[in-house]
């Protein structure tokens, strides 16, 4: 009976994993397709589509743009989020509930709506659309994330540690710089990295708010619209590899040591 249940459980897990990995496997497999159509039968392996990807300057440009936007907007979001979390966790402020609600509100609004609002505002105010506007949009969606993660980690214990620093003569800025920020670094970094992956993969805001300089998802979107092609598979596989590396770094540096304890 128990063995049967375990068998069922195993079967279920295998089935769901297969479902989860099916598109990735197909994507990667047919990125090595020799001919022009990424559908069965497989006639590879060939690296010609990867060569095409790396030779395509528009793609490599978009990749650089994406990295830049992701890193800068996430850094800003992490900084603003940390400061706000520090202020709200450490000081008794009037209407702090309302402030928290405001800061986390963008979490429950669709990206499409956030993007549309910014699009309308920027075009009414005559702000030209560029990577800067994309970065602004990404900071809007990532700030609540960084804030919430950092805020949730600011417990009473950390407060005591900060008191200890003050007790030993540290000024406020020293407390924040030497004690609070390093102590919360895992949370801040987690927020930052999560933001990087979100921004890196965000499409609709970037689509609405960019113009001639675009980020990678927008460029991929254009690629997809411009013809069926294993090159799309190759790009997707490269992006996957990159995100995977990022997640692996996050796991190894931030979480593994914590788990050991």
């Amino acid at each position: 009976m128990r063995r049967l249940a375990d068998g069922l459980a195993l079967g279920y897990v295998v089935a769901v994993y297969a479902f989860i990995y099916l598109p990735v496997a197909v994507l990667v497999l047919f990125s090595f397709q020799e001919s022009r159509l990424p559908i069965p039968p497989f006639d590879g392996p060939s690296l010609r589509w990867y060569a095409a990807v790396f030779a395509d300057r528009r793609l490599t440009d978009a990749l650089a743009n994406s990295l830049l936007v992701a890193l800068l907007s996430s850094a800003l979001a992490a900084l603003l989020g940390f400061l706000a979390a520090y202020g709200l966790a450490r000081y008794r402020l009037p209407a702090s509930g309302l402030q928290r609600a405001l800061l986390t509100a963008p979490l429950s609004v669709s990206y499409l709506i956030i993007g549309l609002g910014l699009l309308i505002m920027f075009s009414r105010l005559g702000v030209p659309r560029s990577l800067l506007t994309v970065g602004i949009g990404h900071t809007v969606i990532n700030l609540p994330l960084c804030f919430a993660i950092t805020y949730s980690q600011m417990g009473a214990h950390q407060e005591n540690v900060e008191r200890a620093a003050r007790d030993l003569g540290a000024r406020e800025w020293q407390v924040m710089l030497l004690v609070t920020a390093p102590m919360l670094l895992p949370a801040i970094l987690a927020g930052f990295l999560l933001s990087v992956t979100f921004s890196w993969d965000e499409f609709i805001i970037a689509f609405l708010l960019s113009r001639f300089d675009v980020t990678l998802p927008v460029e991929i979107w254009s690629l997809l619209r411009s013809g069926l092609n294993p090159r799309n598979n190759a790009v997707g596989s490269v992006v996957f590899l990159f995100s995977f590396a990022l997640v692996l770094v996050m796991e190894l540096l931030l979480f593994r040591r914590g788990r050991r304890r």
Partner: protein
Amino acid sequence: MTADVEVLGVSHRFGEVAALRDVTLSIGAGRFAVLLGPSGCGKTTLLSVIGGFLFPSAGRVRIAGRDVTGLPAARRPTTTVFQDYALFPHMRLGANVAFGLRMRRVPRAEREARAEAMLRLVGLEGMAAKMPHELSGGQRQRVALARALAVEPEVLLLDEPLGALDLKLRRQMQDELKAIQRRVGTTFVHVTHDQEEAMAIADEIVVMNAGRVMDQGPPERVYLRPRSRFSAAFMGEANFVPVRLRREGDGIAILGPFGTHPLPAERLADPAATGGRAELAFRPEHVNLGDAPPGTLDLGEGTVRDIAFSGSHRRARIALDALDGGEIVAYLPQAMEVSATARLRLHLDPARAILLPAEDGESRCGG
């Protein structure tokens, strides 16, 4: 470095709750003082007021004769050892201990030497390069102590520093704390709810309850001659029997279930209460067996209700005839085997008897 601490009429409220009510006390320079009381009764609040983490609603705090009431923690000659140690998790032990010196702009070489010396003082020699999470609870406690002492405070505040340790380690640390205090000579103000710990380390115990100071004095005095029913009850076990008092010549006499008995007047903590009602208190270990010799206070006969072996003695609950079956607790000799329902005759050395002013009910904070 050492200094005396004076707390004058300090009150503090958290919203509706009065955490401190008109607290006045003074602790001499170089003393090891312990604030003792049940949890939630204001002792940690008082420590925060002395340390500069809380600014009292009323009253003043003076250290070395200087008014520090409005000063923040950083500018007081005090440092604190926190209950959860509050070590900087991201710094090595050396950096933790040297942090205060760094804030005081002590050159690196000097502060590293001082940190190492401090670690040696607390028995963690050569561990400056370790991270806090590599340490055991007791070791962390020592680092916290070294860190707080490194800046040579005049007063060291310790907020239940041993609370998280297991019993055996706690007793060991008590001895070390005491020894370190002797060596550095700094005034220590230590908070605990463990009366055994308090008696083991304190030069001076301050018993607190419901935001008030209930008693203050050397451990022996506070234990043997408590000044309030609360401190008698909190410092170990005690039996209480209501009595009436009558002035009799130089002394007083107590009238009660055990008949009339003269006592020297100094027995009564508060002479103003004389003439009215009072309470006779005595510790279980002071109850003697057998017929009452002359001059002793005869408690009469009683029936053993329950007896338990507790190592150094046997703890017995005995229903006294004189109290119409009311029970007292007595510690009987370890060697004496008594069965429940045994009849015993008991008496008390009047020198051990404590007279307390009658109080209305127990404390509201419980024990």
